[in-house]
């Protein structure tokens, strides 16, 4: 596993410069690390700690608190089906059953070919479109089993080169003057 590249380090420094205190850049920095390697590696944690003047243990503690950072290898595509009330009322249970059958894995697991990880997650803030699934940065709303099959078929046979870019969660690039406090 890799340390942060010079480019990632630069991005983190740029982000940190936008806050009155460096450490505020920790969450965005973890996203930068995750964009680089797909997960947040131990090496990246050490690098982030150094850049933001914290200890590795501190950075690790923060990274493990939140559900959107992955510390261990996950599939290329992470299928996140919402299981909270509005979605359950509208049939998310059937989607979950279907996914388990189709992928041959239980929730939280990854297919042996490393292509899919499937998770049930808590409310995605899109309850009007229940049942909802999040895949990368895309919300699938009022999702039917038929549509779900079509999504999996599409991704199952995609060549590796067609993989979409990871979601851009660090929206700080190309922005004029930042919110650095005066």
């Amino acid at each position, binding site marked *: 596993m890799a340390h942060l590249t010079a480019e990632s380090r630069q991005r983190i420094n740029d982000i940190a410069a936008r806050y*009155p205190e460096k*450490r*505020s850049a*920790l969450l965005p920095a973890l996203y930068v690390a995750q964009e680089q390697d797909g997960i947040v590696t131990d090496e990246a944690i050490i690098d982030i700690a150094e850049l933001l003047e914290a200890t590795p243990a501190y950075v690790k503690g*923060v990274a493990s608190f939140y559900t959107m950072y992955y510390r261990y290898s996950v599939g290329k595509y992470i299928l996140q089906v919402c299981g909270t009330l509005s979605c359950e*009322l509208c049939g998310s249970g059937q989607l979950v059953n279907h996914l388990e059958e189709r992928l041959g894995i239980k929730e939280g697991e990854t297919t042996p070919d490393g292509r899919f990880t499937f998770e049930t997650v808590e*409310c995605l803030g899109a309850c009007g479109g229940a049942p909802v699934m999040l895949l990368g940065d895309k919300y699938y709303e009022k999702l039917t089993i038929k549509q779900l099959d079509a999504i999996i078929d599409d991704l199952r046979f995609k060549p590796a080169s067609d993989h979409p870019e990871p979601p*851009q*969660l660090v929206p700080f690039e190309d922005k004029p003057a930042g*919110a650095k406090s005066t």
Partner: protein
Amino acid sequence: MANEIVFSRNHIDNVKDLDVYVGNGGYSSLQKGLTMAPDELIELVKASGLRGRGGAGFPTGMKWSFVPKDTSKPHYLVCNADESEPGTFKDRQLMEVNPHQLLEGMILACHAIGAKTGFIYIRGEFVGPIQIVSRAIEQAYARGYLGKNIQGTGVDVDLAVHPGAGAYIWGEESALLNSLEGQRGLPRLKPPFPAVSGLYASPTIINNVETLANISHIVNNGADWFKQWGTERSAGTKVVSISGHVNRPGNYEVPLATPMMTLINEFAGGVRDGHKLKAVIPGGSSVPILPAEKCDINYDYESIQAAGSMLGSAGMIVMDETTCMVGVARNLVHFYRHESCGKCTPCREGTDWMFKILNELELTGGQMDDIDLLLDITDNMDGKCFCPLGDTSIMSVVSGIEHWRHEFEEHVRNGGCQQRAQNGH
């Protein structure tokens, strides 16, 4: 359309673009608002009766007035766009469709509380809104609506987006501040309240997206105009998110005090496919469930409270007669158990034990005593948790047993949920 404020420009094609927004009266409140004295602006918002739309319903102008005038520290404004209360999905639409309306409100709010810096804290799953709001900020800087000396008024405001990373507890304002400071998102002890000591221990105001989206309209049209809708204690309009067993789920902006059954039957198209109404959670998962008999009320803070629940975040979850209320409690307690930050014992342990018992009731039936045991646990949590997350995690259990105790008993007698056995999940 006539009754819409924050959604009033939603029908305009591409209103998220700055030119389109400005062409339709956008940013017109700045000349007026930024040349008013900050105190005058606070008084105006106070007079409008606007209450916070994030859940607690605290009067916005009053909250702003708590910022001390005599500090040398910088002040901050934080927009709470964490939107994770189950049943609530309005802020996402407000940001995606009309991001400049939010920025305009934030600029005015910054002026009112003497802040030069504001952060928009958006939940990490909302990649679309994060990108759209970021793009709007860029455009606003390029055209002098943000930055130094905004539109020649001498007011400076900088805004930036901060992405969250997936935790409900961040919606709680002090936990949100911790996470904005790069810490684990644990709630802080209050007092001191954020208005006195918030972000970087400086005076900080935290407001919900919808609250801030209202501000430019109040500045443009005045307090009396805003009060033409709603009641004395529930002024203005409210975006209600309706989900669950209805034919047309979605966000509907209505005057406060609109009858709740009108919301369900007319706006949301009625209970799905001719089924019958059984229960409604009127204000997001943190408020008590109301049985159908109690739903003939107006949708405003005081009427919902009188009926035994709360308006909360206005996330209305509608359930028809096929719904198992033990399953509902189990589902919501699962949510709170997952989201409990683990800092205090009543919540960390209480949510876990409630879930274990509800899970037993649902899957194998448990024992008759379990029902009172559940109530005992909720009693040991109520008012004894460090932050409101724990206190509100009991709502579906307490109101569920109050109104549908027979269903809990049936689960014990039947050795689990009959419905679940039938549906196979």
